[in-house]
């Protein structure tokens, strides 16, 4: 029965399409209280007296707490950082601000009341004295002399100064070059905007000393660990973190925020369950943002148009504090991707991480890899133009060739596999490239709306691993994944995975893995995740790791089940273990086709242990902690076609074609869905989205009126195909797909717009490519001035 590789419908959907899916806010109890967090309206201010008396006296209010109460409660009260770089300036991040607020939205107090309306009303009554100061919001400007300091102990607002690659060989490459193409890029700040706002319900039972936290998390065990170590200090076995249904994450629900610790403290103080649900306004101000890079980069070509050097200088802001994995994002998840799909002999990447008076920045779909891909693919586009080459030709000349794998890049990664030209060939065929260029020429001759085509031949590194390497790079966590597979006495299977889903369809795909290997129906498999009391330790869902790492752990556990099953079957069938084979759900004996047992026969005996091998423990359970040998390296070729109205500056996405190689595919429907979502986010970044601060540190895009999310009428049907180059080092041969769309698409779209405008000599427009920016660029090119 082949179920692996088929588009079965999702097993999680019947609950979600009928309103029975239960997200955090859907849980309530008669004694539940509601919290509202009082947040700083200033980006940078000294915190004076906080008068909570009016709030405390308001109807329904049962508690008001500030930093003093955190201290009095004896909690460590700190939000930790989970990735350390050499010389990283680790700054204090109290769960409620002490003395100073550092971004709009920094929490200063919490009000708890009988209902959520009362809590919010009373939050308005908390009287906080602020002495506002100047703020700094620009990633590069933060290091300027005289810039306001975010943390007194971080001189020049520098969080870290990071280098990867070799500057000497890179400079030598540039010195030998016949063409050097330079570019300045702004990779704008984004807000993840999962549609479900972050939420926490904390319930402390003083009789047992146990805290139950139901919350929006992509990694419940990691959240628990960070609460133990830094914010709450309770013993690890006395905290239970549960992720119920989680309404999207995109990175933003990886991190340990102050809020869940604040809510836990409230429950510990008041002895009742406390619920906190972020408003969309709080989501804007406090969900960790993404990107926000300012970059100068250059690429050097020799006379044959081979790349001889790549140089990147980036300022990346961390925001006001170091969010959980923030330091890894613009460093080891960014600089390591600078070789793209290309054989580049010398690379140097320098990144300065800065503090600014802004919301902390951390992993957002792609996390460092979209930023790197944007640099590399924009450079390739501009270098091709400067060399007078077709953009596909320059790429082909520089692709790492199939016989070069495993390919050691100059930026630490060793690509295990790849075959780049077939994906590009297929994408070009799908788009009808030659035909397109003739249409484009006709438009150019005719004037009016101009057509442009843009390419992005991207690579990504997914499933960050192995743990020892991650540790050597600063990770304060292992990056394996766990799976326990239990065959129940009657032959059905329950899987416990540390990979906690929030929309990816783990229940379905993980069931497919088990069903395929054990020859049982997918409906005979239950997948349990997202509960630290139910599941052995696990690392969670992010970085496109679930199938490659979590799925492989399940695969290996099933292998162990089959091995043990063979021994039990051999005993029951009175055969030698080496003669027992497992296929199609049956344990059979070589050369004796009439002798066989089903999985349920064997599992029943495993639990009865009445007629059982003397040297074997009862039970049919296997656990695996799988630590991969390497990252996985999905790749592909993406092509965007846009139409630009040169009168209004409006950009319309006309077609989007992609050929991706994500290795083997467990469920094509789900894989395509992951690509669709990633593409929408990447196209959203290219054309519409952007978080904007004014000079005083106010977020101007603080609502969905101002932050332009992709909506149905602005997008097209994506045209997708695949090549298949299996990952050579995991048993499933899968590579990961969750982030590919968001990584590949921004440069494809921007390259397309710049291509459309190339007759104007326009080389770059910073994202998002709003009509205003495009119009101004055209006006400037026409010598009309931009005002």
């Amino acid at each position: 029965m082949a179920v692996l590789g088929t588009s079965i419908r999702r097993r999680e959907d019947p609950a979600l399409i009928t309103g029975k899916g239960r997200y955090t806010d859907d849980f309530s109890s008669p004694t539940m209280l509601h919290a509202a967090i009082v947040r700083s309206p200033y980006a940078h201010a000294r915190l004076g007296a906080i008068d909570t008396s009016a709030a405390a006296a308001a109807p329904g209010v049962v508690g008001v707490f500030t930093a003093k109460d955190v201290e009095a409660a004896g909690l460590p009260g700190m939000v930790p950082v989970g990735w350390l770089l050499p010389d990283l300036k680790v700054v204090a991040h109290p769960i409620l601000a002490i003395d100073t607020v550092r971004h709009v939205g920094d929490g200063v107090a919490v009000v708890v009341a009988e209902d959520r309306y009362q809590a919010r009303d009373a939050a308005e009554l908390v009287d906080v004295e602020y002495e506002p100061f100047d703020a700094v919001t620009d990633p590069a400007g933060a290091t300027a002399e005289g810039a306001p300091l975010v943390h007194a102990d971080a001189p020049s607002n520098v969080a870290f100064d990071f280098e990867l690659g070799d500057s000497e060989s890179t400079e030598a490459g540039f010195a030998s070059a016949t063409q050097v193409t330079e570019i300045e890029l702004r990779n704008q700040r984004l807000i993840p905007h999962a549609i479900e706002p972050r939420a926490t319900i904390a319930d402390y039972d003083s009789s047992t000393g146990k805290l139950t936290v139901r919350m929006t998390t992509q990694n419940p065990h990691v959240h628990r660990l960070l609460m133990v170590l830094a914010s709450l200090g309770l013993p690890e076995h006395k905290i239970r973190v549960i992720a119920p249904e989680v309404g999207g994450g995109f990175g933003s629900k990886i991190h340990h925020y102050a809020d869940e610790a604040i809510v836990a403290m409230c429950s510990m103080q008041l002895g009742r369950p406390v619920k906190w649900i972020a408003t969309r306004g709080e989501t804007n101000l406090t969900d960790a943002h993404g990107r926000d890079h300012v970059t100068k980069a250059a690429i050097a070509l020799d006379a044959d148009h081979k790349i001889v050097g790549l140089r990147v200088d980036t300022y990346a802001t961390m925001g006001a504090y170091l969010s959980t994995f923030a330091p890894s994002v613009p460093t080891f998840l960014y600089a390591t991707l600078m070789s793209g799909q290309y054989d580049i002999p010398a690379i140097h990447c320098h990144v300065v991480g800065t503090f600014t008076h802004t919301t902390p920045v951390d992993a957002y779909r792609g996390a460092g890899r979209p930023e790197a891909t944007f640099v590399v693919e924009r450079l390739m586009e501009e270098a091709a133009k400067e060399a007078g080459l077709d953009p596909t030709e320059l790429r082909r000349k520089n692709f790492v060739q199939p016989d070069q794998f495993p390919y050691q890049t100059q930026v630490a990664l060793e690509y295990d596999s790849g075959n780049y030209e077939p994906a590009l060939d297929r994408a070009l065929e799908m788009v009808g490239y030659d035909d397109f260029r003739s249409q484009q020429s006709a438009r150019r001759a005719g004037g009016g709306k101009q057509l442009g085509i843009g390419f992005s031949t991207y690579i990504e590194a997914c499933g960050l691993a192995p743990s020892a390497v991650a540790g050597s790079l600063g990770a304060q966590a292992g990056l394996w994944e766990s799976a326990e597979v239990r065959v129940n006495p009657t032959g059905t299977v329950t899987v416990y995975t540390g990979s906690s889903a929030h929309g990816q369809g783990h229940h379905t795909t993980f069931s497919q893995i088990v069903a395929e290997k054990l020859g049982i129906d997918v409906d005979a498999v239950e997948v349990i995740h997202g509960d630290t009391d139910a599941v052995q330790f696990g690392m969670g869902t992010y970085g496109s790791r679930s199938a490659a790492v979590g799925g492989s752990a399940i695969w290996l556990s099933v292998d162990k089940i089959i091995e043990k099953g063979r021994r039990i079957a051999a005993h029951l069938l009175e055969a030698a273990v080496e003669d027992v084979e497992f296929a199609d759900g049956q344990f059979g004996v070589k050369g004796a086709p009439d002798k066989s047992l089903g999985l349920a026969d064997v599992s029943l005996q495993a639990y009865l242990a009445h007629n059982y091998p003397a040297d074997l423990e009862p039970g049919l359970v296997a656990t695996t902690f799988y630590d991969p040998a390497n990252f996985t390296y999905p790749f592909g070729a993406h092509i965007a076609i846009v139409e630009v109205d040169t009168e209004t500056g409006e950009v319309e996405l006309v077609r989007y074609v992609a050929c991706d190689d994500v290795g083997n595919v467990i469920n094509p429907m789900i894989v395509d869905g992951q690509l669709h979502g990633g593409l929408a986010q990447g196209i959203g970044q290219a054309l519409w989205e952007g978080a904007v601060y004014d000079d005083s540190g106010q977020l101007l895009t603080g609502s969905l009126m101002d932050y332009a999310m992709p909506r149905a009428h602005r997008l097209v049907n994506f045209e997708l195909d695949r090549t298949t180059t299996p990952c050579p080092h995991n048993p499933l041969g899968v590579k990961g797909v969750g982030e590919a769309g968001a990584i590949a698409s921004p440069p494809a779209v921007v390259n397309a717009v710049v291509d459309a405008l190339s007759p104007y000599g326009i080389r770059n427009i910073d994202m998002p490519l709003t009509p205003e920016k495009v119009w101004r660029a055209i006006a400037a090119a026409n010598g009309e001035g931009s005002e």
Partner: protein
Amino acid sequence: MKHTVRMEVNGTSVEKDVEPRTLLVHFLREELGLTGTNVGCETTLCGACTVLIDGKSVKSCTQLALQADSMSVTTIEGMATNGELHPLQQSFWDHHGLQCGYCTPGMIMASAGLLSQNPDASEEEIREGLKGNLCRCTGYQNIVKAVKSAAESM
């Protein structure tokens, strides 16, 4: 002071005393326990809270419960009949029109409102008709496909 509100919700008459400022979505979720309707933005901008009021799709996060007095409200819980999924629910399932599922109840209700006004909606009309509902997971492609397919089967 509380006011009495009466309405029909998913075919059942309900009567409750509510504070005048109670939002319809909170009334449905907290007074009636119909938690299938989700809150995404509280500002009418994301559509997660969409329900039908007298057959028209309305964002329940910016309606007071009292505004729906004596009206008929349908939520996602009222879409399936006698255990049989509504064609839109079935189609969202068949076409992978959801991932995390949070926007889905609102998306299905908005689609139901759209198709009741325009049963033969074209792809372009579906995209226009759903522009008030945000989905961050699917890129809308399979949602549009699901609505188109449901329209054909209804």
